[in-house]
């Protein structure tokens, strides 16, 4: 993996410097170096989406991103979502039964935030497509779709603004 090197990145709005192998997975750096264990590993090969994070506003599987590629980028994880109260998407997942075992939930919520930031009122077809990279083994997705619809209905323009969290300069 080569020698460790210092890599700078912005995580949930805070600039961080980490010492990591350049080819180390962004997922491992988030979890092990930065202690952000809300991002989960399910498959390690970009199929299940449990490790979904936003990288400069794009939805990525952090298990497929070498940390080198995140240098200077803006990363948003599940931990960056709830401030004092639950984010409307989190609240909707909680109320609609969109989370069962919870292991896919952080990735699913990040994917939902990404979907709603570009499509604030998604159709069922758009929801199904928007979440097709995030696997859930518990719910059969029905209640996740309901949660997305419920979040879309309840979100204010301020919430939507919060979704487009990426600073203008890197967008």
């Amino acid at each position: 993996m080569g020698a460790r090197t210092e890599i700078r990145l912005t995580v949930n709005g805070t600039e961080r410097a980490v010492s990591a192998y350049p080819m180390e997975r962004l997922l491992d750096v988030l979890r092990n170096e930065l202690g952000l264990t809300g991002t989960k590993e399910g498959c390690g090969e970009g199929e299940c989406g449990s490790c979904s994070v936003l990288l400069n506003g794009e939805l990525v599987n952090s298990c497929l991103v070498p940390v080198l590629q995140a240098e200077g980028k803006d990363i948003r994880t599940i931990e960056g979502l709830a401030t004092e109260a639950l984010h409307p998407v989190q609240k909707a997942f909680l109320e609609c039964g969109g989370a069962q075992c919870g292991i896919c939930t952080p990735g699913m919520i990040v994917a939902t935030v990404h979907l709603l930031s570009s499509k604030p009122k998604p159709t069922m077809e758009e929801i199904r497509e928007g979440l097709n990279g995030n696997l859930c083994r518990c719910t059969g997705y029905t209640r996740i779709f309901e949660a997305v619809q419920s979040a879309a209905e309840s979100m204010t323009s301020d919430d939507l603004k919060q979704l487009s969290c990426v600073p203008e300069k890197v967008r």
Partner: protein
Amino acid sequence: MSERVVGVAVPRKEGAAKVTGTAKYVDDIRLDGMLYGATVRSTIARGTIKGIHFGEGIDWDEFVVVTAKDVPGKNVVSLIVEDQPLLADKQINHPEEPILLLAHADRHLLPLAVAAVRIEYEAMPSVHSIEESECCKEIVWGEDNTFKTYTIDKGNIDEVWKDAAWIVEGEYTTGAQEQLYIENNGVIAQVNDADGVTVWGSMQCPFYVHKALMALTGLPEDKVRVIQTETGGAFGGKEDYPSIIAGHAVLLAKKSGRPVKIVYDRMEDMAATTKRHPSRTRHRTAIDKDGKLLGGEIEFVIDGGAYVTLSPVVLSRGTIHAAGPYCWPSIRVKATAVATNTPPHGAFRGFGAPQSLFALERHMDVVARAIGMAPDEFRRKNLLRSGESTATQQVIREPIDLQHLLDRALELSDYHAKMARFSKQNVLATKKKGMGIAAFFHGAGFTGSGERYLNALVGVDADERGDVRVLVSSTEFGQGTNTILCQIAAEALGLEYDDVSMAPPDTRVVPNSGPTVASRTAMIIGKLVQRAATDLKEKLVAAGLPGADARRDAFRRACGEYVRTRGELKAYSRYQAPPDVYWDDTKYRGEAYPAFGWAVYVAEVTVDTATYSVTVDDFVALQEVGRVLHPVLAAGQIEGGVAQAIGYALYEKVEWKQGRMLNNQMTNYIMPTSQDLPPIRVYFEEVPYQYGPYGAKGIGELPMDGPAPAIVNAVVAATGEEFRSIPLMPEDIFSTMYVNASTKISDEVTA
């Protein structure tokens, strides 16, 4: 129904932690000085170990190495039969069998070290199918490759054939299925003189692990402590296997003197851990001239893999469910679990029933077609009625109306109108549509005398502020254990839902309420929680304090008063069988389960005759599960089970080569995505069950049983071709519809 908390969609207890990502799963925990463990596994299916070689390029002094020689005492995984070693010593019986363990502080170095260990083998012939195992050319287990057999005999089956208007035979097979919980298996172990052994892990049954570790270490009960961490899905896949991983981590921790974490990656988890048993079922059925069942013979065989593990229990449930919810005047079920050189198959939601019920409900359609009767009509004539008895001669005392359930499911799915329309449209269409039915049941709780042997113990305690805790070893892994048990306690005590919490799932804190399996948590454990809560109130009354009928504030004050003056306020409740329950373990006769969940499901599919793919367009799931404790969680259980069963029917195929799973990745083992599933329409009929908490029965496994036969019945209705195996892949439909059209197997139908 006047309950305040039960039946209400309260928020999931651990829900906020899950949606914020703060819930701690085992891989989220790091202890000081912790090492990471990895497993060296066999690459052959059967043979003997001739040597272990540590290759060059690795600084082996940095690694902790554990072999079978480091196992103190007997080298077995303690479960039912002691035939499975914790680490293979000489004999190898399946691919991916653990041989050697390694630990190191740097996680990244482990895969390199595992690859550098070379095991020298002398290979032996191996067995890889039910048929190969049955023919006994190679004996790979015991004297005849047979783990277990059961026979159910009701009426006089040998006499029915002469009176039959029709005799219909059929053979049906089902494949292995991977549980595919999104969180892989993992544990952390710590060993020291003061505390003994402590294990944290992703698991369903802390006391199974506790028992296995006591046997492994020889330590007394109080020196082994098992704590369940937040568990990211299980579905049966974390029932027995965590005992193995925990054993491995304990051996490494003991040898190194440091905490050790073993977390499998996806490929290792899929290749090495348990799956649903593959099965073969043969039916021979006698029907009279009116379309009534006279009798049937069912031969049910499951592939158990290389060691006994849970196969006898899985076989038992499959055997009892094999005759389904029908009235058979005579029936004989002969069931066998056989050995092959594959990693042991294990528990998976449904536990043998999805296999034998797939065969049965497919066969019911085959029979209906053979005797010229509509599938719904044939079922309606033969479904059990109250007062009639099941294959084990269990008289149905619940006031069920399966004919009504069937009619309602047909109405909800618009079955008759759509079938009529499809049969016209299909003639010229390349996309052919069809509908299929499955009527089925699932027993809640352990089979037969099981609950009496388990002897579950449940507690409820209250602190000085009147905050109440539920004390159980029943675990949460998505189903909603925490939520429903707190609802029940709150209801029984007149408290608010938020006043009640779960004690940590830690064997040092909670009593042994048995394993979290077999659709037993809501019905059996829920009832014990209700009773313990009632006993807690009575303790207050006995102390002259307001307890029974006290309002919330008075109750809380009374708890405070009690704790201050008398100390601990805690009540326990132990399992008591409902009255008039009789079960004969040798004859397999009597009350197999305290209660059943009943269901009729209807699937609507499209078969594209250009691509041979099947799409499920609509799915109606109607069931009677007693009182629904939580409408959102209950519907979520059904939806999730149906989704998993759609995968079982159409997508999830384990490819084997010499007993090893070849497609052990999410890339090539395909589970349903958000774009693959139909609207799953869930309906409940609620007939309160007398001995369940507030009338509830079990629910978790039921939805796994019906979808596969309903879907394949629908594919048959759409195409007019016969399909008798799952998973039903596009290539199977292609080969049946075109390539093998002329050699299609026809039923033996005799007049």
